[in-house]
């Protein structure tokens, strides 16, 4: 009997506290490598990929057309006017960047907490982070009015002798988002190099060998290199953990530093971070559920993962529900007329549908996750995730519109009506995300192979293969 056969026959020790395994079914080092690399190298691309890529591409083309028109005509093509001077762009920005946060939570925070189950979902969750942050970063630039001079946001020696205003949270945002994008990219790539080497060593064509050979940097799995790699991964995780909390905190500062009623609140940073992780896990599930089905990865992305992600959603959803409850309470407790007017306006004003829709999508429907059936059945979980992701967009829309359109002076009150370009750019950005993500799935290992090998019981010396 070969070692691979013996590995396949090695019994799994049940983990304490759960009946659901992280890896379902027998695996050896060889079968794991084969299963994950074959998606990229040998297996034919599934029809599902072509269909979703086509839809994504169509949306991306719409995005390019809309952005071209936007650059040609200016931000007037949006529905924005005074006092609602930013609406969809900032909503989309906050929504996208929030989605990204779950990827960092899975890859960094769960790594530090030694949660082995994350190993099969961290790679594509990180990819999701990068593409989500990319989409997020576009919106402030699209909304600039003169996007070709976006680099004026950065401090650099210039002949105009003008510099950014460091007391402004919008400038903090530039640094927070660009740092977040860079660190996420470094962390993702660092973790992927050993797997790219696996792809290089198994590639069948000269082109693939060259491509993966170059981007795997000549990785050869030496123990000294593994040690450096591990130290760097842990330290990057340690750095990314406070970073991810800081990014959405700074995003919330964009609102809280303003004196506008409904925005000027100290609860915003934790409120935004919880909402970000909530929506991000919804996106992770929306991506994971079809992927595991289409690529037959049910043995690696198991019901355990769905269940755990659903539990994180439930927990962050409850934090969010608490914030929704405490917001009107603080308004009432403060005795501030304007704050109370905002609460009243949100509940029964012209945009009250957003308020009730937010509560339905983010608080009421997700309570289904208390039931095990809704956490473990992919179709039901997919439905709840879609509802949450939609609800989180509506929530940001509500926060932004209902506060802006009625400020202190009734004479400056107005309303906001979205233009078709608002919608086409939002839908188009989803297309951009889908296209990037599908290209990633097609050309890169979507599950971390070396971290999965570590989860096998015989991966430790003296660990379980009987001779």
């Amino acid at each position, binding site marked *: 009997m070969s070692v691979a056969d013996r590995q396949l026959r090695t019994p799994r020790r049940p983990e304490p506290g759960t009946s659901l395994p992280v890896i379902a079914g027998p695996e050896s080092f060889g079968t794991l490598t084969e299963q994950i690399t074959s998606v990229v190298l040998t297996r034919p691309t599934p029809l599902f990929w072509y269909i979703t890529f086509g839809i994504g591409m169509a949306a991306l083309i719409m995005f390019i057309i809309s952005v071209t028109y936007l650059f040609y005509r200016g931000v007037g093509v949006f529905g924005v006017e005074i006092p609602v001077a930013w609406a969809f762009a900032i909503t989309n920005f906050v929504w996208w960047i929030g989605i990204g946060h779950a990827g960092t939570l899975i890859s960094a925070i769960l790594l530090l907490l030694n949660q082995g189950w994350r190993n099969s979902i961290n790679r594509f969750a990180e990819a999701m982070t990068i593409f989500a942050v990319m989409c997020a970063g576009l919106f402030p630039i699209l909304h600039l009015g003169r996007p070709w001079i976006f680099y004026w946001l950065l401090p650099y020696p210039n002949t105009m002798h003008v510099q950014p205003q460091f007391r402004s949270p919008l400038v903090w945002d530039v640094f927070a988002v660009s740092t977040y994008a860079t660190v996420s990219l470094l962390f993702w790539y660092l973790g992927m190099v050993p797997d790219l080497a696996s792809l290089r060593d198994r590639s069948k064509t000269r082109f693939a060998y060259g491509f993966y050979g170059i981007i795997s940097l000549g990785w050869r*799995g030496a123990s*000294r*290199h593994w040690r450096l790699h591990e130290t760097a991964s842990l330290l990057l995780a340690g*750095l990314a953990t406070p970073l991810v909390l800081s990014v959405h905190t700074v995003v919330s500062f964009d609102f809280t530093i303003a004196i506008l009623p409904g925005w000027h609140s100290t609860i915003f940073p934790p409120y935004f971070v919880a909402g970000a992780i909530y929506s991000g896990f919804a996106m992770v599930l929306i991506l994971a559920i079809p992927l595991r089905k289409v690529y037959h990865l049910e043995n690696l992305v198991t019901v355990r993962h769905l269940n755990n992600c659903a539990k994180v959603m439930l927990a962050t959803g409850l934090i969010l529900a608490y914030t929704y409850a405490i917001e009107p309470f603080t308004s009432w407790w403060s005795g501030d007329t304007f704050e109370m007017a905002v609460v009243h306006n949100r509940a029964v004003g012209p945009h009250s549908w957003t308020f009730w829709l937010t509560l339905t999508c983010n608080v009421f429907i997700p309570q289904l996750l208390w039931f095990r059936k809704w956490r473990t059945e992919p179709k039901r979980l997919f439905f709840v995730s879609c509802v949450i992701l939609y609800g989180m967009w509506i929530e940001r829309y509500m926060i932004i519109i209902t506060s802006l359109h009625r400020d202190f002076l009734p004479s400056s009150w107005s309303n906001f009506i979205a233009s078709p370009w608002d919608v086409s750019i939002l839908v188009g950005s989803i297309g951009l995300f889908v296209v990037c993500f599908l290209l990633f799935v097609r050309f890169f290992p979507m599950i971390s192979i070396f971290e999965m090998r570590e989860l096998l019981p015989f991966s430790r010396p003296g660990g379980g*293969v009987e001779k």
Partner: protein
Amino acid sequence: MIATGNGPLYAYAAEFDDPTALVNAARAVRQAGYKRFEAYSPYPVRELDEIIPGWNPIAPLVLFGGIAGAVTAWIMQSWIAIVDFPINVGGRPLYSWPSFVPITFELTVLVASLAAFFGTWGVAGLPLPHHPVFNLKEFARASNDRFFLCIEARDYRFNREKTAELLEEFEPLQLWEIGKD
């Protein structure tokens, strides 16, 4: 023993299919006094850390990067806000340091992360497109399900017979002789 590659001898490589054998062999090689040997595995085997020690300055590099980022950010913001482009906002002090904290934090993380990333490749000597171990065709499985222990010929204890004997003791699947070219 099967020879692969051309040119002068680079190393002897023992191929294993199991991490236990790799670690045992590495330990014995170390106890026999060899210095220039390396273990290759498809995932990090932590037990090798003490057997094959190596220079790992990533943590101090990250600390240095973090401090450099923080100092740069603070000086940059203070200098711009006070000297280069002072803006009087309702008579508030120009050195309004609490608002410098977020950017200082971000640049600390950014430079520390860049130090971790580039430090890893710098110390590891990567990217390195070619390395003598790649002369062994079967080495492709080092990124899949095989474990290799290489003893370099330039080790002063290296002896064709004795080194081969030492490696044979651990019953490798195959013992390879890797040429330099």
